[in-house]
């Protein structure tokens, strides 16, 4: 099992090296095969590790392995160390499994791009980084994976680097994540001070900090900062919608299925530290709830097909944060998995639409595509039903696990439940708004002109991963069934004990209410957008400030520019203008001129040779040394 885990980790890195070193000696297609093939190796190895763990009793399912000492200082060490346990294997399966499907899809999607090889290399680099993140056995290596996924995300967002919007989006994503990296790192220093190690086995011991003590709060807060930035939760969320500048398979893999959910993994992995600071853990849930609401509202007015899905990703991760914030780790990770299925599916279906419409992403130019792209339409519909949590699609089970847990978590739980239930309504509304606008009705004028459907909608390379994910989006939810079984909770139990879900009438109420809200959302979307109802226009005219607030995305971008970017740019300009230039650059120049003119006048004394200066220096030094000696 341990060798399999190491192979799973390093196979994609080997793929990167192979693509980079072979360069133009292999075809672009083969570069794609190397990338997806190495991810398949990771998936098979993850399966082997999974089966090996399955054969053990639950208490024994934690295996650490260190290959070498990565970093040391004085007499303490950080190993290149992995951990194979139920949580890491769960994540490995999701990352490498969904990753393999998306990388295979990308071979078709990126076909013909002049820099395809670079693309596939970056993609494999991402899979390696993400596996490092979830497999690491200590917090330092986890942080390394954490940074490297951010790097590959940056490289892929600005993959089409001729577009200035893509370059700006890449920088924004990197810098916001660097803020999270910094708070993450700051959280590790007090741990090192207390434990002398960052090894999970040491750090998660009892008594690392007093419950709710300032240190415990700061540690949890630092980790939460990292999680919020990586998972695009409010207030560090503004990079994710812009990240849609990257190629669509990137959005599917990195900005939907895997990397952005790393924050949920982090909180579940370090739940011991969060439980020492319950207020901060609750804060994670509250931030998640706010994100559900804000992102859901913004998604209602977006006009770019990928941005709608991006806001929906933010809001779905909000659900996961609500879950882990309330200690329902199983439910949160269950939703992480089903979300990976249906959100990757939605992005990949959207990618087929974008391809068919000659790279158009504006939904106002789309319409009536269902009849021309029937396969894509069905796949998108399944993804939308799963996202809207309609039974029996995958999202229904996982979302109701989360809401059921919230209903059992006291006053705060009920407050978050209320937001999340309203979020379920919003989710159904914006999802089906998108679906109806894009696929229903008459074929739009733009589509009539530009629609270009090759033989079979998209080609087999792109079709089979979409088909497989469609199946997973239908059946993936049956791992955990209300009134039935809780396989995910049970599997993760040795790592983190999940909070109990509500039972009986409360739970029934939760399920029925949220399902009804979701169906109401779909019905409303049908009424408005399937029939081109003038209601949105009327609302917009009646409440222009509200429409504007939504379109300006609650003014977060403008506020951050004014609060952070502009002050730092201005202080840099001031430092240059009033300190560096006059004090350090010009003053000595004046001095130099002064000395030169003086030396011109004293040319009799000045001999101009370095030697005489050195002599003078030596003599002067000797005099000063003598003074020193006499004084002392």
């Amino acid at each position: 099992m341990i060798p399999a885990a190491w192979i799973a980790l390093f196979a994609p890195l080997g793929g990167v090296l192979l693509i980079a070193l072979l360069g133009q000696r292999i075809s672009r297609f083969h570069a794609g095969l190397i990338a997806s093939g190495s991810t398949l190796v990771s998936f098979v190895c993850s399966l082997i590790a999974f089966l090996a763990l399955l054969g053990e009793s639950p208490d024994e399912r934690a295996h650490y392995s260190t290959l070498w000492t990565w970093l040391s200082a004085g007499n303490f060490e950080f190993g290149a160390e992995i951990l194979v346990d139920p949580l890491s294997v769960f994540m490995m399966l999701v990352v490498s499994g969904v990753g393999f499907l998306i990388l295979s899809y990308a071979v078709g999607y990126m076909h013909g791009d002049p820099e395809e090889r670079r693309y596939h290399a970056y993609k494999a680099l991402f899979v390696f980084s993400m596996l490092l993140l979830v497999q690491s056995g200590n917090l330092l290596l986890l942080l390394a994976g954490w940074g490297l996924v951010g790097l590959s995300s940056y490289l892929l967002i600005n993959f089409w680097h001729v577009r200035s919007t893509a370059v700006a989006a890449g920088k924004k994503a990197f810098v916001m994540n660097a803020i999270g990296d910094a708070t993450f790192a700051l959280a590790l220093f007090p741990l090192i001070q207390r434990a002398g190690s960052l090894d999970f086995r040491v750090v998660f011991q009892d008594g690392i900090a007093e419950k709710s003590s300032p240190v415990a709060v700061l540690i949890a807060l630092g980790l939460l900062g990292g999680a919020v930035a990586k998972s695009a939760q409010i207030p560090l969320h503004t990079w994710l919608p812009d990240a849609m500048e990257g190629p669509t398979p990137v959005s599917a893999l990195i900005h939907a299925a895997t990397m952005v959910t790393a924050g949920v993994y982090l909180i579940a992995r370090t739940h011991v530290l969060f439980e020492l600071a319950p207020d901060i853990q609750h804060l994670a849930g509250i931030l998640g709830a706010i994100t559900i609401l804000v992102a859901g509202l913004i998604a209602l007015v977006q006009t770019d097909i990928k941005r709608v899905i991006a806001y929906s990703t933010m809001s779905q991760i909000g659900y996961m944060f609500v879950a882990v914030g309330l200690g329902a780790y199983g439910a949160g990770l269950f939703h992480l998995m089903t979300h990976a299925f249906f959100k990757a599916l939605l992005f990949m279906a959207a990618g087929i639409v974008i391809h068919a419409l000659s790279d158009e992403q504006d939904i106002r130019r789309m319409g009536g595509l269902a009849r021309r792209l029937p396969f894509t339409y069905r796949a998108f519909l399944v993804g939308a039903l799963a996202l809207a949590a309609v039974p029996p699609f995958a999202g229904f089970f996982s979302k109701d696990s989360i809401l059921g847990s919230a209903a059992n978590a006291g006053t705060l739980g009920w407050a978050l439940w209320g937001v999340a239930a309203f979020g379920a309504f919003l989710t159904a509304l914006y999802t089906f708004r998108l679906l109806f606008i894009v696929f229903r009705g008459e074929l739009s004028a733009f589509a009539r002109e530009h629609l270009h459907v090759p033989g079979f909608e998209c080609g087999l390379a792109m079709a089979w991963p979409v088909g497989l994910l469609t199946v997973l989006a239908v059946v993936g939810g049956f791992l955990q069934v209300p009134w039935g079984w809780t396989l995910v909770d049970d599997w993760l139990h040795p790592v983190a004990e999940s909070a109990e879900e509500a039972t009986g009438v409360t739970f029934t109420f939760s399920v029925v209410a949220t399902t009804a809200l979701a169906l109401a959302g779909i019905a409303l979307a049908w009424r408005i957008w399937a029939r081109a109802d003038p209601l949105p226009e009327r609302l917009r005219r009646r409440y222009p400030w509200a429409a504007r607030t939504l379109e300006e995305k609650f003014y977060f971008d403008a506020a951050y520019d004014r609060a952070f970017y502009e002050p730092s740019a201005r202080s840099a300009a001031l430092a240059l203008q009033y300190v560096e230039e006059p004090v350090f650059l010009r003053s000595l120049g004046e001095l130099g001129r002064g000395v030169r003119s003086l030396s011109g006048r004293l040319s009799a004394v000045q001999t101009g040779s370095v030697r005489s200066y050195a002599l003078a220096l030596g003599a002067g030094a000797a005099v000063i040394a003598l003074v020193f000696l006499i004084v002392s």
Partner: protein
Amino acid sequence: MTTALILVPVGGALWVWITPWKNTRGPGGLALLIALVELALWVGTAANFDFGRSGLQFQTDTVWFEDLGVSYHVGLQDFTLWLVGLTVLVSAAAIGYGFWVGRERPGAYLGLLLFLEGAVIGVFTAQDLLVFYVFWEAMLIPLYVLIGVWGGPGRLGATFKFVAYTMAGSLLMLVAIIAAGLSAGSFDLAEAGRHQSVWIFLGFAAAFAIKAPLWPFHGWLPDAYRESTPEVAGMLSGVVSKAAAYGFLAIAIPQFPGAVSDWRVPILVLASIGLVYGSLLAFRAPDLRGVIAYSSLAQMNLIVIGLFATNASGNDGALLQMVNHGLISAALFLLAGAVERRTATGQLGLLGGMARGRPVLATVLITTGVIALAVPGSTAFAGEFLILNGIFAQGWGWAVVGAVAIVLAAMYMLRLISAVLHEDVGSAVPVEALDLRPAEIGVIVPLVAVLLFLSFWPAVITDHALQLFGGLP
């Protein structure tokens, strides 16, 4: 062995310089050969080095002036072995690059570079304070000439400032050395023991602070880095600045424990200001060299922060970061040279779009850039993490300042990468500008390859750091 490491480049320098060359490529070929022999010599030394043993190895100790207690005493410790390795690698790259570009009067130019290499190795290996001073001066004098004769249009002003600053520092250090040696009765580092005098400490500290440079002693830096040739700038920021950090690490901090603990806070304040100040100016600098120069200022101040954390974590992190930053800034300056050769400018506003059709340039610049901004997982991250962890033990406020600077580093490095490589093709970028040539790849890629290797195994450096401080960090 240690003496050979010093003598090969110094003797080679004379050979290259004195030989009356008829063939214009002759001096370059010979200089590069000597630099490579030196590199091989270092590899041999490292292979024979006993890492299990602490203390000096490959020593030479010959009495020089018996009355004064001066002896020619040189030797290698495990941590200086890495600094010497950095020096020979960066020097070989610089000499190879200078040879390939073809400078005026190549015999003198490359001879001076070799001499500089030998002098820096002398600084790292000297075990006697007067010998240290001799090498220190021998290191600075070739730089005066290299900047003043072969530099850009503003070289005279740049040289004047550089001389003025470093002369002042050297003078203070000489005074400090004489005072320290006479009061202790010996100039030997091992025998001298610990000093109590704050004034002697400040004499050393001033010289090192100027050369590093510590804020606000950096007035010479922007011009010197902008006006010198790329390979000299790479040597200056990559290697020579490390001699100053080495001075703190091996002399000022271990010899003056009392003064260090009194002066720690003021020095940390200056270094913290320098870290943020340098990062901000790097973000605003209009040209490639400016960004690299001010980011070097920031990095050197970060290293000083690590050194004055005075614990194992800060100390080991500073050593690792010295090696990292040496490789990073040398690679960046050579890349800047490669860009400037193609476009005849370093102004970021005139550059852009160079990634298209130039995959090697793009890959090497991005790789170096993201290591420079210390992306988690890179060796620069490992170094900065240890430094900040070390300084955290002195007070969490310092670590927060460092964390802010990490975010700023991402901002200025990404700005540099995109300004050169991305978006529309800049007005100064000719369509026919080539990708990196094999010679450029040959000098730059080895530096980057070592950085990548260190990213897999930074402990190879930190396992062999100077053990000044025991216990948990």
